[in-house]
């Protein structure tokens, strides 16, 4: 690089590249989720699909500041997090198709894990994975690895006792743990405001003396900045953080053969659709200096990537009957 190129120019270039990459990741997550809903209706995807459509900015912004050694715990709505973390898309699709070449041999589907990207679990139990993440943070602290653990939970998980236990312990033991709450205003079909005294969930973490902040979860830049700060603090030994990401599922909670029968107030849905995180990320990329032509080409590119992953998953064999008896520790049961 020429020494005459100033720091400001480099910074602008990095800023542009980051903005385009954020938009690309979010487009990939959206395309993958749309495809999985369609493939579920065609009965290729096994089990339920919990799409994260509308929440792509959280997945993208949270995973961006994480390094290779850092760990992630997600939940049953975890496709976006896995993609943002860089999971092998073909093997991930094969997992959701229940195929042998899936990241977990096809046995886990939506409750996958992926040691390659250091995803510990995508628990199917609301809040069930949170203590696992705290334990991995304790492990990092004991072994002195410098790793930080991010746990992603929904606002519904804030009603679970184990989250309160973990907040208390994480604060007392100064664990390198960042809890990211995707606060999308619903828990299954129930509006969260019907079942909590106050929609501000940062108060819960603050009550346990865990530093907490509320973030616009549809603004990928804000998500990434807040997460980077919390991760840096945790890595420096300053303890846990809680980030409330305000966002919204613009489709629905769950789909099997058909979507769940949910009713969202029309005005509420329209307001959130108007704040589509992909459009916002595109606008940010343009502001950062991206060529509109480059950005317009991205949806087609990621669609081809998703289509290729689906073709690959389809070609993977289903597990054979004997696979049921394989011993996870090696050998036969």
């Amino acid at each position, binding site marked *: 690089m020429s020494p005459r190129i100033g720091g400001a120019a480099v910074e602008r270039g990095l800023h542009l590249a980051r903005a385009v990459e954020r938009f690309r990741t979010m487009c990939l997550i959206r395309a993958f989720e749309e495809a999985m809903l369609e493939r579920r209706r065609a009965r290729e995807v096994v089990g339920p699909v919990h799409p994260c459509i509308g929440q792509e900015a959280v997945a993208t912004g949270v995973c961006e500041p994480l390094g290779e050694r850092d760990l992630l715990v997600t939940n049953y709505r975890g496709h976006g997090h896995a993609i943002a973390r860089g999971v092998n898309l073909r093997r991930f699709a094969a997992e959701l198709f229940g195929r042998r070449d899936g990241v977990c041999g096809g046995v886990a589907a939506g409750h996958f894990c992926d040691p390659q990207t250091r995803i510990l679990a995508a*628990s199917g139990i609301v809040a069930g994975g949170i*203590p*696992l993440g705290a*334990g991995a943070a304790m492990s990092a602290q004991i072994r002195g690895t410098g790793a930080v*653990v991010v746990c992603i939970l929904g606002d519904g998980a804030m009603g679970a006792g184990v989250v309160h236990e973990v907040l208390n*312990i994480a604060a007392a033991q100064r664990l390198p743990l960042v809890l990211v709450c995707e606060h999308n205003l619903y828990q299954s079909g129930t509006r969260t405001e019907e079942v909590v005294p106050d929609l501000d969930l940062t108060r819960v973490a603050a009550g346990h003396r865990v530093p907490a902040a509320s973030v616009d979860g549809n603004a990928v830049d804000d998500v990434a900045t807040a997460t980077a700060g919390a991760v840096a603090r945790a890595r420096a030994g300053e303890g846990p953080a809680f980030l409330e990401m305000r966002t919204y599922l613009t489709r629905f909670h769950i789909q099997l053969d058909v979507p769940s029968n949910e009713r969202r107030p029309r005005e509420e849905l329209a307001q959130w659709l108007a704040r589509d995180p992909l459009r916002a990320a595109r606008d940010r990329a343009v502001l950062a200096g991206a060529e509109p032509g480059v950005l317009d080409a991205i949806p087609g590119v990621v669609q081809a990537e998703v289509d290729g992953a689906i073709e690959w998953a389809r070609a993977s064999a289903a597990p054979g009957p004997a696979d049921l008896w394989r011993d996870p520790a090696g050998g036969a049961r």
Partner: protein
Amino acid sequence: MSDLAITDMLIEERFAEDETLVLMATTPPAGLTARFAGPRVRTFPISEPAMVGMAIGAAMTGLRPVVDLNRASFLPLVMDQLVNHAAMIPFLSNGQYQVPMLIVCVTRDDLQLGPQHEQCNYGLLMAVPGIAVVVPGSLADLCGLARTALRAPGPTVLFVDRRIEEQRGISAAMGTPPIPFGQAARLRDGGDVTVIAVGAAVERAAMACAQAAQKGIQCMLLDPRTLAPLDVGALGCAARSTGRVVLVDDGPGAGAPAQLLACLSETPGVLDAVRGRVVTIAAPNVPVPSTPVLERQTRPSATRILRAIEGVMAR
């Protein structure tokens, strides 16, 4: 700790050898804290579900945590973490993650602690694939099995009856090498009746077998030692050879005894050989009361076991 002096000693012994070992307790033993001051001996608030869940995450990332659950009665508190996570993760991850963790707990005491502290509930975990269920029936077996449990590849729960800890002969017992899981102990040979006893009931079953011998009835006494993995081969072989079975446990009959019987019935030849000559002697189907007169009745006595042995002989 759970006032389990021997278990504490074994953990401390292993702590010096295995630097991945971590103790998670609400009150860690003073000796361990003094010798290994630092992050591996961790004091927790009374948050059993989080403790067990954190042990899982630690075990998945290179450590070997030991959780002091204190009482087996607290097992229901941690069932989501143990059943839905610890037991399933090796399978769900296709073997990519292992969960080498140990939970230690006390089943019964004779201190009138009441039903919420006095339970032989290991039978619950026999119905959960993926967990090693360890129930020693003697002091030496406690030492040998605990040593194996501290090296086991997957989630393991060690259930200790305080009566076992209070048996004599600590220094001799401490010399016991690791005992492999899934190997029943044959404590007495005999061709008439197979007696299968679990935990602290093993001692009373042995007394009953000795009394039966004086009456001319020769019993084969087996202690499975680990209920999962279960030594179905040894139990089935004994049941076939005697054609009579008495199952003895201090827990409810629907727990370990019912599942031992189910495993036996699936073993080829056992049902044909036994032909109905099988009796379960277990705790009555009620919580363990505090008042001593009633509490005593919940443990099968040697007399009850002897009557059962005589009963199956008469058939």
